């Protein structure tokens, strides 16, 4: 029991970060992480890989998030833009920096979910390519090609001028 606590607990902050970057809404992200932890606790004895539980936990979380996306593909888009105000992210940053960060995150959000997931797992959560492949249940080659597409696409977005108008356009469009 203590072993489970000791191994899972340190991963929770990273799980929150990944969940929030995926769903862009604090409450929804924390609900996902809570679901993930409950499952992890119930299935602790059944986990197949004996190594670090990090990729196992990310796999649970990712599946929960994807199930949710699939179920609410249309709805999720409204939630992500309308409710994910700037305050969902990085409150400690200096204002100017914060604007840059918000821009990066807004542009990240434009990537297809599968590309976003790969980029986050590898570039932010420091999973190895093999671990990311396991989490996403795809071959390593697919991880590499998604990573490549994600980076190219994000670069294209970043080279567009950063302004707030774009945000407004999306917001108007996403109103039901």
């Amino acid at each position, binding site marked *: 029991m203590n072993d489970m606590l000791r191994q899972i607990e340190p991963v929770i902050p990273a799980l929150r970060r990944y969940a929030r970057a995926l769903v862009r809404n604090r409450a929804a992200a924390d609900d996902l992480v809570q679901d993930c932890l409950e499952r992890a606790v119930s299935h602790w004895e059944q986990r197949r890989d004996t190594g670090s539980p990090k990729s196992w936990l990310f796999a649970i979380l990712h599946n929960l998030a994807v199930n949710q996306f699939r179920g609410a593909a249309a709805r999720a888009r409204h939630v992500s833009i309308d409710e994910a105000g700037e305050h969902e*992210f990085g409150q400690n940053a200096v204002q100017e920096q914060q604007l840059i960060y918000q821009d990066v995150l807004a542009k990240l959000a434009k990537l297809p979910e599968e590309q976003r997931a790969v980029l986050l797992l590898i570039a932010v959560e420091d999973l190895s390519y093999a671990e990311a492949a396991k989490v996403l249940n795809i071959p390593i080659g697919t991880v590499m090609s998604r990573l490549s597409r994600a980076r190219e696409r994000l670069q294209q977005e970043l080279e567009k001028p950063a302004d707030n108008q774009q945000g407004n356009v999306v917001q108007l469009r996403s109103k039901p």
Partner: protein
Amino acid sequence: MSNRPISEDDLHAYVDHALEAERQAEVAAYLEGHPDVAQRVASFSDQRSMLRAALAPIAEEPLPPQLNLSRIIESKRRRPASFRWAIAAMLMLAIGGVGGWAIRGATEAPTGGLAALAQEASDSYHVYASDRTRPVELRDSTELAAWVSSRLRQQVKLPDLSKSGYRFMGGRVVPTAHGPAAMFMYDDDRGERLVVLTRPMTSDQNAPMAPHSGNDVAGFSWADGGMGYSLVGPGAAEQLKPLANEIRKQAQSI
């Protein structure tokens, strides 16, 4: 210095610090001589640092009470998840009429075949497996078996996939153009869900196991003795094959 050409994968691994020291040096040397590629790689590295910096504060926030792991463990211990559905599933008790059999066959349409069944199973997967509130109507296997058996006018046995690592979640009766079908749902320790759909077949009453895929899901369908079965899940069909074989074996042992 190796003679291996530099690949796109090398460039990404360079950005992610995932290369061996020797290869890292080779890529660095290559970038020296190719400023245009170097610029792309630099922009990827910038993205990486920006994303990390932008998201770092989230991981530093104090954890909310709902994510207190000790408390989650404590509450699980108080309510042990002693679901015995899988065992109960083996005790199929339902009484199914065989009345409908007599009139079967008269209204055969090619659309009632395996392809239609596979489509119905995929549709059920898309609608119900993504449902976080109420993916299944009934969780009690005995009650569920009785219900679906009476609706399908067949004795329906609930497949047990616990040996393959999938927990029985429950099921429901779902509508199809060929009458009611029984849907069963399972999940594994990663939260991945599978759906099994079964109904009487109007055509293809005996059909060998065939894979199908599309629209993010894959699966296997087959028919034995007038009953069609389709297993659908995320990912590749090949991974589902052992499960499909297991379900078929169990269904044949009624």
